[in-house]
Structures are given as structure tokens and as C-alpha cells.
């Protein structure tokens, strides 16, 4: 966990409104676990004031520019352009100076190997699932259920397939894969693989549905949450989410940045997740 004062290696739009950025970060990969995130600083000057949190899509390395140099280790993020910060990010070019704080937070617990693994991603929510899939595929059969509004919201599926992951795409408008909600696909899969472990990331309404389904099927579920964040390191207490058994008398607030962003479903109080979102405009993914 460091603050990398570094540079952009590449930054391109991969689907309308979605971009992929590689950032130079020597030594980052060795410490990063699936499900962790970074706090990204767009530029030294304002705006924006605060850093922006982004899941780690993957880490890797490129061959050095010249003989004898070490390979260029990078961290890669996938982001959706939704507002001021991400609009400024989209304009970044190779060589621009940025800062990356990370890797941050608690990632996924990979669970028993051999077990059927079902990954559920909604839109940009697929980001943290790639590194998870990469480390699961060796030991367990892995399925990715990928949902989105339209074909444009379905990202990087081929990369999952290259890992050897079985992928099932569904879109609300049927413009890609089967028409309908990803949660419908999940029900079918759980009927088929009752002993599976489920890992989900996406919009809160999707996560709430996934939680209900997994509870009904009594299968273990881990979810990766989003919340408004100022510090990303557990200092500001801006990013909290209600833990199971929370009440005014017995407060059980959990820090999304430090105790999360990945939680076991049973750690959380699902009663009013939707009403009191960590992020006010509701999900943008």
C-alpha cells in the first residue's frame, strides 16, 4: 500500500462512455489481491478536490522500452465516464502525471477450491471479478453471469473467456445475449449448481436481488460495494455501510474502504440498503 506518483501508460475508450487506463506502478501487482481498489488522483491541481475510487481490473507488465530495463509493471482500471472526475480522466494521455493510492481494502475470499464458482457482474461491476476469475480458474469451474442495460454495457467478456471462464451475457433490451435480468440467469444456474459460491458486483438493486436469491438457495455470497469515499484508508468515516444488527443503540457501521469493499453478505444489514445508499444518486453503473 503506497501512493504511487506515476504516469499514464495508455488510456482508451473501449465502448461508448467506458475507458480503460493502464498506469505504471512498479511492485503494485505483487501486493494486489482480487477485489481491492485504488484511489486515483487525476492531476496535482484542482479540480477535482477528492480522489476517485476505482476497482483494480488487473495488474500486469509490459516489456521494457530498452534492453536491460525491468519490465513495465502496471495496474489497469476500467471506468465509466459519469461526471467531472471521470470526464477529466478520459482526457488523460500517455505520459500524463497521475497518482495512485493502493492497493486498498479487503478483497475476495476465494473460498474452497473445486467448488462451483458463479461470478455475477452488472455493467462496470464486472471490474473486480476479472482478477478473481484469473486466480480461481485453475482450481475451480468458474462461470460469469454478465448483465447490462444494452450491448454497450457489456465489457471485456472475451477476456474472461480467454481465461477459460464460462460466460453468460444478458441485457435488459436484448441487444446482446439473452434479454432480461442477470438475476434470472443466476436463479437457473443455482438450480443447476446448488453448491456454488457466488461473488457479485454491480448496481445496488442487482445486489439486493442477488442477496435474496442466494439467501433463498442458502449459498455463500460475497459482494463488492460502492460508497462515497474521501480518504480510502479508514480515516474519514465517510464510506460506512450498516453491518448486520446495526441500530442507533448498537451501531455496527463498517468502513467500505477498509473492512470492504468486499463483504460476506451476512456481514451486512440488507434491510434498507437501497434507501440509504452510500452513494446518493444511486448507482451509475
Amino acid at each position, binding site marked *: 500500500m503506497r501512493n504511487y506518483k506515476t504516469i499514464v501508460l495508455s488510456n482508451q475508450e473501449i465502448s461508448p462512455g467506458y475507458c480503460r487506463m493502464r498506469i505504471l506502478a512498479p511492485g503494485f501487482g505483487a501486493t494486489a489481491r482480487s477485489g481491492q481498489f485504488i484511489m486515483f488522483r487525476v492531476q496535482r491541481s484542482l479540480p477535482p478536490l477528492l480522489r476517485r475510487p476505482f476497482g483494480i481490473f488487473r495488474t500486469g507488465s509490459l516489456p521494457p522500452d530498452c534492453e536491460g530495463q525491468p519490465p513495465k509493471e502496471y495496474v489497469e482500471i476500467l471506468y465509466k465516464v459519469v461526471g467531472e472526475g471521470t470526464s477529466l480522466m478520459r482526457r488523460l494521455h500517455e505520459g500524463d502525471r497521475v497518482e495512485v493510492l493502493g492497493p486498498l481494502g479487503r478483497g475476495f475470499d476465494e473460498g474452497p477450491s473445486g467448488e462451483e464458482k458463479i461470478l455475477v457482474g452488472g455493467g462496470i461491476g464486472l471490474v473486480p471479478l476479472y482478477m478473481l476469475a484469473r486466480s480461481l480458474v485453475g482450481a475451480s469451474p468458474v462461470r460469469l453471469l454478465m448483465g447490462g442495460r444494452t450491448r454497450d454495457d457489456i465489457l471485456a467478456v472475451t477476456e474472461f473467456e480467454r481465461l477459460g471462464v464460462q460466460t453468460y451475457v444478458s441485457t435488459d433490451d436484448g441487444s446482446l445475449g439473452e434479454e432480461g435480468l442477470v438475476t434470472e440467469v443466476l436463479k437457473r444456474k443455482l438450480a443447476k449448481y446448488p453448491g456454488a459460491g457466488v461473488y457479485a458486483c454491480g448496481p445496488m438493486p442487482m445486489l439486493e436481488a442477488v442477496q435474496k436469491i442466494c439467501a433463498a438457495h442458502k449459498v455463500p455470497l460475497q459482494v463488492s460495494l460502492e460508497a462515497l469515499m474521501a480518504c480510502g*484508508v479508514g480515516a474519514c468515516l465517510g464510506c460506512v455501510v450498516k453491518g448486520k444488527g446495526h441500530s442507533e443503540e448498537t451501531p455496527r457501521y463498517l468502513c467500505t474502504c477498509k473492512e470492504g469493499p468486499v463483504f460476506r453478505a451476512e456481514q451486512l444489514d440488507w434491510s434498507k440498503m437501497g434507501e440509504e445508499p452510500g452513494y446518493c*444518486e444511486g448507482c451509475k453503473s
Partner: protein
Amino acid sequence: MNNGQRQTKPSERRPSLAVEIAGIRMKNPVMPASGTFGYGEEFAPFLDLEGIGAIVTKGLSLRPKAGNPTPRIAETVSGMLNAIGLQNVGVDAFVKHKLPYLREINTPVIVNFFGNTLEEYAEVARRLSDIPEVAGVELNISCPNVKQGGIVFGTDPRAAAEVVKEVRRALAKPLIVKLSPNVTDITVIARAAEEAGADAISCINTLTGMAVDIRTRRPRIANRTGGLSGPAIRPVAVRMVHQVVQAVKIPVIGIGGIMTAADALEFLIVGATAVQVGTANFVDPGAMGEIVAGIERFCVEENIGDIRELIGSLKL
């Protein structure tokens, strides 16, 4: 920092940045603002905790406090709103789980605290008096007095004097009183605190603000209003520190929108003996280290051998 146009002949020896506030000796005048630095530990990976003047911990109350519903924060133009609601672990957990780590660090620890009643304030003060690792306390009086229908202690000179007196009586440590900027005349409150026994004043706390999501038509934080911090408030903070320095004899700690050494220097020049850095810790967890280095660089450039020559050197 706007690198001055004219030449500067750097002085030989390193300038002394040491200051003393209410008997607390500090290596340099830079410390974190309460609530933006957790309990110190969170920043150890990014910052040398022994390279700053003091560690100021998250606002503490007698019993653990749940804090407010979410969303608790919202970014605004060059600032942020927060309504954390003073969530904290309470005195017992602080002593048990947070202090042991701080004990090992060779930097004075200042504990920021608050209460909902005079009794609570006094009780926390008593508890903190017995703890050797606590170099001093910072009294946050920007809290509603539940007994008096929730009027904020810090916005009424009588209420402020009362709580400071109570705490002073119960406390066997240096007492820093932190003022709210949401008042007509901050000098009145500052003088009331001084007369009631404060050893130092720190100001400012956040300005009360609000932001609305025009699509949902909801306030952007659940608590409706929140505290505005960050560079946006700096001019108001500098003005208030300037006023308070002239109104009281005790030292003043300047707070509000400090992002760089240049910003910190503004406060020192108007007369703050030290500064606290808040929101900047979120933007760059190493910010305080760079600010200390920048202040030292400035002293060299301006031939200042001792930071105390700079403090209050405003030319009018």
C-alpha cells in the same frame, strides 16, 4: 508555492521550525486536523508520523457514537461537505485499542473530544487527565447542548465559557479550545474561552453548508447540512485567525483549507503559532510531510533562522 521573482540568498544553517503551544513542544508547526487523520495509524504507510508536530485524533466522546446515516460526504467546488456525525469508538475503546500504537511514536498526541452535556464534557476530560500518553486535549465546542435545546456551545459566549470552565476544572492537561466559524463575531467566543481557562485556541472548524442533487432534488448528504472544508474556506479561516490572534494573548492554531506550504504560511504570517491540515490528508496522505518541507524551504529562501520570526510578521 509562487516562487518569488527576486533573488534570495539562502542562509547557512537549517532553520528551526520548533514551536510550543500550551506547554506542548512540537518539532514543527504542522499537525493534522481532528477527524481527517483517524487515530494516526491509518497514515503510517504514507507519512513519517514522527516528522509532524503533533498527532490530533478523531473527536472522542464518553460512549461510542454511531454517527449519521449515509451519504455523509459530498464534494463541492474546491471543498467538501461532511456530516459524519462524530462517529467514534468512545473513550474506553480508544484507550484500549488506539493508544497503544500511538504510545510507540515519538510525537505528542492531542486528543480532540466533545460531549452532549456539560457533565459528559467534564467526564471525558477527567478520564483523559489520567492518561500519560495524552500531551494535551482539544475541546470541540461545535456541538449542540442537548440540555439547552441543542443550541451549539460554540455559538454562544456564555455557553462556551461554561463548558470551558467545566472542562478546565476537570482537566489536568493543556487545554486547546476549537472554535466554530459559524458566528457573528468569533473574537467574543475566543475571549470567553480564554477567560474561562483555555491555554490555546484552534480555529476554524467547518462552515455549515448544503448541496442539492438537482435530479433527485434531495440534499446530497443525508443530514441535509454538513460542514464545509477544504481550500474554498481558506480566506474565511485566515480572516478569523487574524481576528482571534489580535483578540487573545494565548497561542492560536490556524485551520482551514491548507493544502500546501504556501497556504500554511499565510496562517503563520497572520499570527498562528501552528496549523492543522485536514481535508488535504484525503487528497494526499503525504501532504503534511510536503508542507513541513515547503515551510523549511521558504525559511531558507527568506533567510528566516527561526520560524518564530515569521509568526505574526504580517505587514499592515
